[in-house]
């Protein structure tokens, strides 16, 4: 089940820079007796085009790890390199620009603005990036086209089914042509059939467009479809899926 990542040096390419590399990440919340160590020293590398599932139970630290990797939070200890650049050296504006252009996010809860149209929701990252209205529209429609949602472009976010909403979220994550797509329980709120469709879209993007896919889940069936699985428990990565084995 736990296939190791292909070693590039074995297949004859020069060693590429991993898109994400983390060393000894630690993160704690609270102080004194309330102190909770969410991460206790996590190291990992993720190569370009990889598909990785971070698997763990509630409170295992998997979401904290994803937030650190997505540069949404800063670790207490350890370093993260994004495409060879140390994230700690980036500040403010450059960090925001990096997050905006490199990462896409897909969430369980969708986070769509119910009063805005589907198109407006989708082009939000472009708006934040300062892209002009005309280009926003063209790129938004292109990505909706790709996800077969073009006919829903003018619908309000609230008037969509769960599967449609998650596809809109994926469209929003893709509109900036990100290199890494972070998904947090992307199928958690969907029924099995719809969840399957969304999974297929995500893996299709990984396979056909080379987008690195990093997904946080506690769903072992979903995790099984990824090229790599990282199991996390009590803030440390564990080599095998003990829970599942037990």
């Amino acid at each position, binding site marked *: 089940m736990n296939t190791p990542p292909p070693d590039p040096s074995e297949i004859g390419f020069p060693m590429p820079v991993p898109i994400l590399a983390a060393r000894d990440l630690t993160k704690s919340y609270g102080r004194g007796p309330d102190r909770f160590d969410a991460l206790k020293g996590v190291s990992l590398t993720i190569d370009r085009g990889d598909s990785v599932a971070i698997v763990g139970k*509630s*409170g295992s630290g998997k*979401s904290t790890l994803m*937030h650190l990797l*997505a540069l*949404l*939070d800063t670790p207490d200890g350890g370093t993260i390199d994004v495409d060879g650049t140390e994230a700690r050296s980036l500040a*403010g*504006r450059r960090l*925001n*620009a*990096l*997050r*905006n*252009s490199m990462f896409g*996010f897909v*969430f*369980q*809860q969708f*986070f769509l*603005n119910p*009063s*805005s149209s589907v198109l407006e929701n989708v082009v*939000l*990252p472009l*708006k*934040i*990036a*300062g892209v*002009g*209205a005309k280009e926003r529209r063209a790129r938004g429609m292109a990505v909706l086209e790709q996800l077969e949602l073009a006919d829903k472009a003018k619908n309000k976010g609230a008037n969509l089914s769960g599967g449609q909403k998650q596809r809109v979220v994926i469209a929003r994550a893709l509109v900036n042509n990100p290199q890494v797509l972070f998904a*947090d329980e992307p199928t958690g709120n969907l029924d099995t059939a719809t969840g399957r469709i969304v999974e297929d879209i995500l893996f299709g993007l990984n396979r056909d467009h080379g987008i690195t896919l990093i997904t946080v889940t506690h769903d072992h069936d979903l995790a099984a479809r990824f090229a790599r699985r990282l199991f996390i428990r009590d803030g440390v990565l564990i080599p095998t899926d003990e829970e599942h084995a037990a």
Partner: protein
Amino acid sequence: MKPMDILKTAVTNSFRSKLRTSLTILAIFVGAFTLTITNGLGTGISNYIDTQIAAVGSSNAFTVTKTDTSGTPGSGPQKYDPASRRVAAGGRPGSTALVLAQSDLDAIGRISGITGVSPVTRLSPDYIQWAGHDKYQLSVSPLAGATPQLDAGSGLDEAGSQPQLILPSSYVAPLGFAGEAQAVGQDTVIGITDATGKAHTVTARIAGVQQSALLSAGGAFINKALSTALADAQDTGAPAAAKTTWTAATATFAPSSSRQVQDMKSKLAAAGYTAQTLDDRIGTVRTVINGIIGVLDAFAVIALIAAGFGIVNTLLMSVQERTREIGLMKAMGMGSGSVFALFSTEAAFIGFLGSAIGSAAAIGLGTAVSGALARGPLSDLAGLQILAFAPLSVAAVILLVMAIAFLAGTLPAWRAARQNPIDALRYE
């Protein structure tokens, strides 16, 4: 995020919760409405005072009196000075005024900048009559260089030898004229009694008819020729001393800056004279009105500050509601500055809406009320528009309200800006 996108998004966001935004706008509306009305009142009244001041006199003349120091309470009796003479004066019973003699006039004339000095003679004509109609009491205004606003006719000929007067419009019908146009150019007879009790008459021509105004108090403006003729008649048989002493003099000067005027005033003060321009004398009216307007403005600003707290409340609720959205936008790389700008722009926009609507309503209602008043209760005061709206002051009101709204928006905007995307996205 581009500024234009921030503006558009802020505008869209402010309409998301329509009822809440409308109520906040209503609160601002009340403040902006009041402020615009009080401002309009201030503009209207000071416009009117300005025209009235222009109506009653030239701004390049002082009324000069001898400075009286004896009135100082607690200073005890003053030593007798044979060089000064006192006459009974108006005001509190028993008060006196120092008189000016020819030597004083000469001294005033020597002050640099003063171009001419003429004594102010108190003229007390008995009546005015036209063509055998009824006689009416008349008081005359000896203000030199007055430019009253005329309904008919033309201004006084100060240089000519023909005695002329400007008739207040209230005299037109009683004197027997069919209309103002008929009165112009007619010769009237003015009766005056001399020191020995003998009645004299002087014939004067009506040069023009004056609009009724707040400050003219019914006195007729007369030219120098008439003033001299009346004075001659009045002084017949008077002791010589009375003919050469006056309680006040008019000193004219070339048009000057307010600094030069101030300079001349201090020189006159050093020489022992008190000089007042017409502005000084009427300025007290303006000060009182400005004080009243200021108090009204203060009430309006208090209303606006209350409305400001409404904005704080509205936006804090918005920030609360949009926690996840803000977190998402920050996760997508939106900077704290943009988030702050987004919410404070929303506050300023709400302020703009409230103040624009409030000012528009105030202008609409104010203009209607002011027009009705000018036609009705205030029709006696020609030219008084009690509410006048200057574009600049209305714009200032709108900007002030927007500034207050912006200030009120900074707290919620700051709270939104410092929000951590993680807190918004954590949902395990």
